[in-house]
């Protein structure tokens, strides 16, 4: 499974981990990862430690998650990105929309 999810003990935080390439082929799996959760989740963490590559459609999916999580009020952290992934996030200036660590 290229996408795994994990709920924190208090249920407030949902962590989505993407393994390998994060591109259009993971579209449905990524949406399923957060859309099927109940409403209590208030924080999202996208764990990119196992992500080797990220393309523009992945950026689009992150925007979809942001919309789902409340748009400008969304609390989403992108964690553990490697240099290639970070470069793409930086070029697109996504740090203005997400907390990138």
């Amino acid at each position, binding site marked *: 499974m290229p996408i795994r999810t994990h709920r924190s003990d208090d249920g407030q935080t949902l962590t989505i981990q993407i393994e390998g390439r994060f591109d259009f082929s993971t579209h449905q799996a990524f949406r399923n990862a957060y859309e099927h959760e109940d409403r209590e989740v208030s924080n999202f963490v996208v764990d990119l430690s196992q992500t080797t590559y990220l393309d523009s459609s992945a950026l*689009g999916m992150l*925007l979809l998650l942001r919309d789902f999580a409340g748009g400008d009020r969304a609390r989403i952290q992108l964690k553990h990105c490697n240099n290639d992934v970070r470069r793409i996030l930086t070029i*697109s200036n996504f740090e*203005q929309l997400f907390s990138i660590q």
Partner: protein
Amino acid sequence: MKVSADHVDASALRILIADDSDSDRLILKTLLKRLGHEVRAASDGREAVTVFPDYQPDIVLLDVLMPVMDGIDAARRIKEMAGEELVPVIFLTSLTDADALAHCLDAGGDDFLTKPYNKVIIQAKLGAFNRMRQMHRTLSRQRDLIQDRNRQLLEEQQLAKRVFDNIAHTGCLDADNIRYHISPLSIFNGDILFACPRPAGGMHILVGDFTGHGLPAAIGALPIAEIFYGMTTMGFSGSDLLREINDKLVRILPTGMFCCAALIQADFHLNQLRIWNGGLPDGVLIRRDGTKEFLESKYLPLGVLSSGRFDASMEVFHTSAGDMLLMMTDGVLEAENQNSEQYGGARLKQALDNASASEQLIDAVLTDVVAFCGHRKGRDDLTLVSLKMVVDAEFRQPAEQLPQSVLKGPTDWHCVYEVRDETLGKFSPLPLLLHICMEVPGLRRKSADIYTLLSELYNNALEHGVLKLSSDLKTSSDGFSYYYSERERRLGNVDGHFIRFSLAHRKTDAGGQLRIICEDSGDGFDHTTELESQATEAHYSGRGLMLMQKLGNSLRYSEYGSCAEIVYDWELAEPVPE
């Protein structure tokens, strides 16, 4: 082909049999008829091959050993004639030797029936082969349908592409100082590249990359093209275009779809570049002496932020003729080789360092990318564009070539338009004023002149009159950037100020006369010394007074430089149609 599959009784088949033994043939024929099939019997392979095309059987049963032509030879010919259609051939044999039976199948047979015949087995095999035959036919039909639909789709796309190209590629991409490369992944590609001359001279270039490619990307590109060409031609600035395009994309694109893009506003008269980069890889500005500046993406892509949060500020660069600007989409940096390594920024820098003559910059980079990737096909769209800064006069004005409109329009009129207070900091009246002037029949051809006059007057009134900026600042590169940051700052505090344009036009025998008066609320300036100093020195920009004098028939300042009046006489290219 006959359609026995469509018979009411689906299992009733049309069967061709060949056996040289009269008794065996009769037994088999009777047996098959009793099972409800239609049968045609031949006495050797030759006869079977001869009747095959007309009879068009669903299944063929052949004795292996026959005079004239044996079953194996007949099977081969029948298979040839059947072509793509699956006509199962079953050998009839009394042989029991495994090698001999295997030989029958090697020769193109599909199965064998051993004599003496067993009714149950024959019935079961015919049923099995009929299912296989029907499956084959269904698959073939579906394949043909897919091929047909695909061809239809490609034809439609080609047609749509022609329409798309007519809308999207009407600009000045073929100008002498632009070089570009676009590689489409499909007929439509997710990359966009537009260039359009500005009425004041110079041009806008928009290079972008939509998420995804193909039809959705091309559909998003159309409104961008409309806004880009429309607003540029009307004299709007790059920032105005960016705000309008972003707003449009936010409204029409679904969340998750956006356009990484860079807008370049090149002014060959002022020798400056204004650049906005939202999501594209670093642009490279290569000076005539070979030094490089990297112009990184500072903004989110177009179509992400709502208009309230969108920042359309463009960075200003002072340039000289011969400087080159290179922009690209991420397809260049992400091009992969056999080992799935990406081309990357380091290799790009190396390729740029190695490129000798700046004219071949794009070719040098492309050759390097292709050499790196080997034969592997690109995964992403790949677009490169380079712009060379040129001397003003080398960039031809296309408006002069416009066909002269025969429509009648207003020729004698007068209007006053005043911009006040904080509007001064937010709004440029130039496109509106240009639009009013362009309503005059025949004057459209002079749009470059008119726009230059209006914008020089306006900029002088705004920057030197209202904002009290000294053009001396622009004589050094440092001062140049200070000038523009100071301009931004002071624009925030323009309450109590105004700029007033009075335009009047009247018809003359040869064409017309346009009179433009521009007044501002500033303290004015000593226009007499300004004119003298510009005549002697090569200024970075100055107040453009020389230029205005050249274009207009007379330029007059009054009220210590805070009121300028230009009279512009123009002539029709052809006599006025009666």
